[in-house]
């Protein structure tokens, strides 16, 4: 390269950085930077009235799995914590699976509409996606609460005599999360199906495949990238859910998100809360890295 060309390239790179700097600054101060502080806090001692005291300690991290016995100070496995982790993982996985089971037919349905009506169906899926999470959670609450729509209808129909107690159970949180995160599964699935050439199906049937064979051998492999993206998009926020379990779980059916909040509120154990936050971040990062590797491999295959 000549000097002038070199100068042109380095000017271009410099401009890229100058232009990106304001955004980077805002994100460093308002999002990324504070995460570093959380990491530091997870290794400090809890303060008596919240906050922290300066002094290195692994208690925060140890506290994730163990509690000190009140009487003899020995470490015992914290069953309550394990219950919360198990519930978080179980509900997040169930939500992911169930959103796929109903989201796939929905995405397929939208993708096979006429080009004219397709944007409208797509728009109908998008509206809930952009609607306030709290409002949607509250809306599902209106349906499943003791005196809600579901119980009213079932009782009017005479199918039940006493209202179903759904609200404030794991089932309520599960229903709420499926409702709230469903569009995040449908949209990437739709994107994958939309790219798919329907003539491949004709070719499949032409070669004597049955419907089930076509579904398994042709459709599922093509939908796979959408499935992976959708699963990440549903699983990650489900695992960190805070509003839905708080409103529908009634404060008892806690998930990791609520458990973290508790440490900064009544629990007054900031280091434990910080360690839990980091743990959640690590799990999510691993999920994303697996996804990125998969996506890159797909790219390389194409």
């Amino acid at each position, binding site marked *: *390269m*000549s000097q*002038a*060309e070199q100068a*042109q390239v380095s000017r271009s790179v410099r401009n890229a950085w100058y232009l990106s700097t304001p955004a980077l600054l805002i994100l460093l101060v308002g999002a990324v930077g504070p995460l570093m502080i959380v990491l530091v806090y997870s290794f400090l001692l809890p303060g008596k009235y919240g906050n922290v005291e300066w002094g290195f300690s692994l208690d925060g991290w140890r506290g994730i799995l163990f509690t000190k016995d009140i009487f003899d100070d020995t470490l015992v496995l914290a069953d309550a914590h394990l219950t919360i982790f198990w519930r978080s993982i179980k509900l997040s996985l169930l939500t992911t699976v169930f959103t796929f089971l109903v989201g796939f037919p929905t995405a397929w349905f939208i993708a096979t509409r006429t080009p004219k009506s397709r944007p409208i169906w797509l728009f109908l899926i998008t509206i809930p996606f952009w609607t306030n999470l709290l409002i949607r959670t509250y809306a599902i609450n209106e349906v499943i609460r003791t005196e809600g729509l579901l119980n009213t209808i079932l009782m009017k129909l005479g199918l039940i005599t006493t209202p179903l107690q759904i609200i404030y159970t794991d089932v309520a949180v599960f229903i709420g999360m499926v409702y709230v995160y469903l569009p995040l599964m449908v949209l990437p699935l739709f994107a994958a199906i939309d790219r798919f050439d329907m003539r491949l199906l004709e070719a499949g049937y032409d070669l004597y495949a049955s419907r089930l064979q076509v579904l398994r051998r042709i459709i599922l492999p093509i939908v796979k990238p959408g499935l992976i993206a959708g699963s990440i998009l549903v699983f990650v926020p489900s695992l960190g859910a805070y509003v839905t379990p708080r409103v529908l779980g009634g404060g008892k059916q806690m998930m990791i998100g609520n458990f973290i909040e508790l440490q900064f509120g009544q629990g007054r154990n900031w280091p434990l809360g910080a360690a839990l936050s980091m743990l959640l971040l690590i799990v999510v990062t691993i999920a994303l890295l697996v996804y990125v590797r998969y996506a890159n491999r797909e790219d390389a295959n194409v």
Partner: protein
Amino acid sequence: MNAQNAVEARNTVKAFGQGDAQVRALNDVSVEIRKGEFFTLLGPSGCGKTTLLRLIAGFEMPTSGTILLDGQDITYLPPNKRPVNTVFQSYALFPHLTVAQNIAFGLQMLDKPAAEVKSTTEKMLALVKLEAMAGRKTSQLSGGQQQRVALARALAPQPKVLLLDEPLSALDLKLRKEMQIELKRLQTETGITFVFVTHDQEEALTMSDRIGVMSAGKLQQVGTAKDIYTRPVNRFVASFIGETNFLTATTEAGGARLATGDLIEVAGTTPGQRVTVAFRPEQVRLVTAGEAGAIPATITNLVYFGTDTHCHVALNDGTEVVARLQNPSTGDAGLAIGQTLALRFAPGAAQVVED
């Protein structure tokens, strides 16, 4: 420096990529384009012709070498400071502006007084016959109309040189023919130097004052259409422009001897070298077998093209040669596959070309 040159490229090299992956889009190209001429850069895609155009426009910098405009070194001048305008292959019309606003754009950027902008724009609209479309958005125009807006927009600031990057490639055949004539008319009327890039040999031959043939990042030959057609310097130029027969021969006093033992008349050669002899199909005459000095051959195929017929013949060693025969207005020439006859060339038709 020749004062007659509008543009001059000296030893320009443009390399893309680094190390082993480096590709030289231009490999030491020098060319002089004269004032007021219609100069065409002709070559297959990837030969470097567009890169050379972009160096003249200032969209790219050469890796080494110099670009001169009117004798001034403009190698590192940004495009907005060069009195050179471009008609883009995709037209690149501003979609948010009207036809008139597109044409006025360059004049406004030069901060010309409003009255002058207005009068020049109107003049340009008239020149390309789009007065009625002045207020339209460019997306509402047909391909041919967009093409003319692009031309008017580039001509409005009265550049010293107009660069045209395959401007006709998106048009259909009929429109392309019309625009070829239109372009030539505009060039004559405005007297502006045109540098035209194309891969279409017919376009190049019909419009240009001079043609530069490019291949693999190198300028192969520069000359008038006739020069290039009748005196190609090498095998690439001969085969890229028009159809050509190539025969391998060994030179001796008075000509070149083929593997069949026949002698072809070629001028200016040193005896005893293996060379490639080239000649055009229309320069072959078919004569009756056995005629003295003619090369014996057998007809292998006849392809009818309307105005003429291509007659494929095989020499005694199997080498294939194509002869183009103009069809008589009535009847046929009485040729048949399998027939034996002989070939003869017009004097000076066959020539030695570099490989």
